[in-house]
C-alpha cells in the first residue's frame, strides 16, 4: 500500500513539469480551455445551484432550532449561516460535489482517450499530451471553481432566507441584519483560497487517474471512482490544513 502510494506520488511529481511546459500552439490550447470552461462551469451550474439552495435552507432551519431557548438574539442565525457558508459549506461541499461530477468526468474522458489510442495518436503527431489534455482543464478549474463557489455561497444564503423567512422563523429584517452583522472580508479570502486549492486538487487528481489508466472497461471505471475518492480525501485534508494555516 505504502509502496504503491509512493510510486504514484513519484510519478505524479515527474508528470507535473510536463503539464506546465510551453504549449505548442496557444490558439489550440485557448480553444480547448474555453471548451473546458463551458463544460466545467456551465455544466455544473445547475447541480451547484440546487445543492446550495437546500444546504442554505437546512442550515438556517437547524440553527434556528438549536438556538431555541438560548438568550442569543435571533438575528445571529443569519450571521452564523453567512460565516458558515463562506468559510466551510460553500467551498467544501461545492468542491466535494464537483469532485464527483467534474472529477469523474475528467478521469473517464481522458481514460477513454488513452484506451482508444487517441493519446497515442496525439503523441505521434508530436503533441505534448500531458500538457494539451491537462493544462486547459487545470486553467478551467482554476477559473471556474472559485466562480461556482461564489455563486454557491450567494445561492446558499438566498436558500437560507427562503427556507426560514417565509415559514415565519424570523422576519426578513432580522435575517438580513444577521447577514450584515460582524462581516469580515477575510472570510471571503479564505473561501476563495479554499476554492482555488480544491479546484487544483480535484483537477490534477482526476487527470492523473485518467492519464495513467490501464486497459479495459473495469479499469476505466476504477480510475473514475479512484479520482472521486482520492479527490474527496485530499480536499478534506487540505480543508483542514488551510483552516489551520489561515485562522
Amino acid at each position, binding site marked *: 500500500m505504502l509502496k504503491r502510494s509512493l510510486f504514484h506520488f513519484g510519478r505524479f511529481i515527474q508528470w507535473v513539469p510536463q503539464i506546465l511546459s510551453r504549449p505548442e*500552439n496557444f490558439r*489550440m490550447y485557448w480553444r480547448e480551455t474555453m471548451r473546458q470552461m463551458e463544460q466545467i462551469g456551465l455544466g455544473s451550474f445547475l447541480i451547484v445551484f440546487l445543492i446550495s439552495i437546500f444546504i442554505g435552507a437546512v442550515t438556517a432551519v437547524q440553527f434556528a432550532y438549536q438556538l431555541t431557548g438560548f438568550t442569543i438574539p435571533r438575528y445571529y442565525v443569519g450571521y452564523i449561516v453567512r460565516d458558515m457558508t463562506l468559510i466551510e459549506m460553500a467551498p467544501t461541499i461545492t468542491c466535494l460535489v464537483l469532485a464527483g461530477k467534474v472529477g469523474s468526468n475528467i478521469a473517464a474522458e481522458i481514460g477513454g482517450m488513452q484506451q482508444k*489510442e487517441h493519446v497515442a495518436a496525439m*503523441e*505521434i503527431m508530436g503533441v505534448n499530451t500531458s500538457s494539451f489534455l491537462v493544462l486547459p482543464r487545470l486553467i478551467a478549474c482554476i477559473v471556474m471553481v472559485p466562480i461556482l463557489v461564489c455563486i454557491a455561497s450567494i445561492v446558499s444564503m438566498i436558500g437560507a432566507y427562503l427556507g426560514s423567512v417565509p415559514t415565519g422563523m424570523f422576519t426578513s429584517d432580522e435575517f438580513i441584519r444577521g447577514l450584515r452583522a460582524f462581516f469580515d472580508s477575510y472570510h471571503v479570502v479564505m473561501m476563495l483560497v479554499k476554492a482555488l486549492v480544491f479546484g487544483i486538487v480535484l483537477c490534477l487528481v482526476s487527470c492523473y487517474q485518467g492519464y495513467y489508466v490501464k486497459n479495459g472497461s473495469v479499469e476505466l471505471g476504477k480510475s473514475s471512482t479512484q479520482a472521486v475518492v482520492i479527490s474527496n480525501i485530499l480536499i478534506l485534508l487540505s480543508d483542514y490544513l488551510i483552516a489551520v494555516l489561515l485562522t
Partner: protein
Amino acid sequence: MIRIENIKKSFGEKEVLKGLNLEFHKGKNNLIIGRSGAGKTVLLKILVGLLQPTSGTVWYDDVDFTKLGKRDLREVRMKVGMLFQGSALFDSMNVAENIRFPMDMFSTKTKKEKDMRVDLCLERVELEGANDKYPGELSGGMQKRVGIARSIVLEPKYLFCDEPNSGLDPKTSLVRDQLISSITIENNITTVINTHDMNSVMEIGDNIALLSDGHAVWQGNKAEVLTTENQTLQDFIFASPFLLKLRDSFVKD
C-alpha cells in the same frame, strides 16, 4: 529508410524482442507479420517512439531516433503518420476537424489552405463531402479511411499502419491495401505495416519480415513467400491444409 539495430525490449522478466535487425525501405510497403504475441505491436510502438527499447538503435535515415531530445523528437514525429488499428479518431471532432488537427497544431497555413488540404486528403481516400460527419456516424472502413487521410495530411515521410485491415471484409481490405500502396509509391515514403492479413502479404508485400519469439526469422518479398523453405513462415502463412494445397498447386503450375 528506417533501420533497426539489435533492438531488445523486455517487460519485467519477459523479453519480447530479442535483438532485431531489420531494414524498411523507402517507397516500399514494408510488412511486419507474425503470430499474436510475436512482438509486432511492441516493435511498431518502438519505431514510432511510444515505447523505448531496452537496448538497440532505430535509425530514421541517418538520425538515431532513440537518442533524440524532446524538441528533435517532435520534429521527426511531424514527418510521421500513423494509422491505428481502431482508427483513433477524436469522437468530439467531425471528420474535417480530425484531419485538420495536426495542421491546426503545427502548421502555419491559413484556414483556407487547411480546408483545401482537408478536401484533397478526403478526395484521396474517396470520402469527398464527409467533412461534417462525426466518427460515430461512419462505418469501420470509412473510419479507417479518415484515419489514413489524417495520417497523410502533413505529407509524412514515414507512414505506420497497425493492422489496417482488421475487422474489414476481404474486398474492402484489398481496396485499403491498394490505397496505402499507392500513397506509398506516389509520395515515395517509407511505409511500415503491421498485419495478420495474408491477402495484404500477397498483394502489397514488397519487403516482408516475419517475427517469431522475439526474433526476425525471415525477410523477403511476396514472390519469395511461395517458394521459401523456411518452416516457420510456411507454418504461419499456410496454416490450414487448404492453403497448403493451394500453394502446392500454384508452385506446380
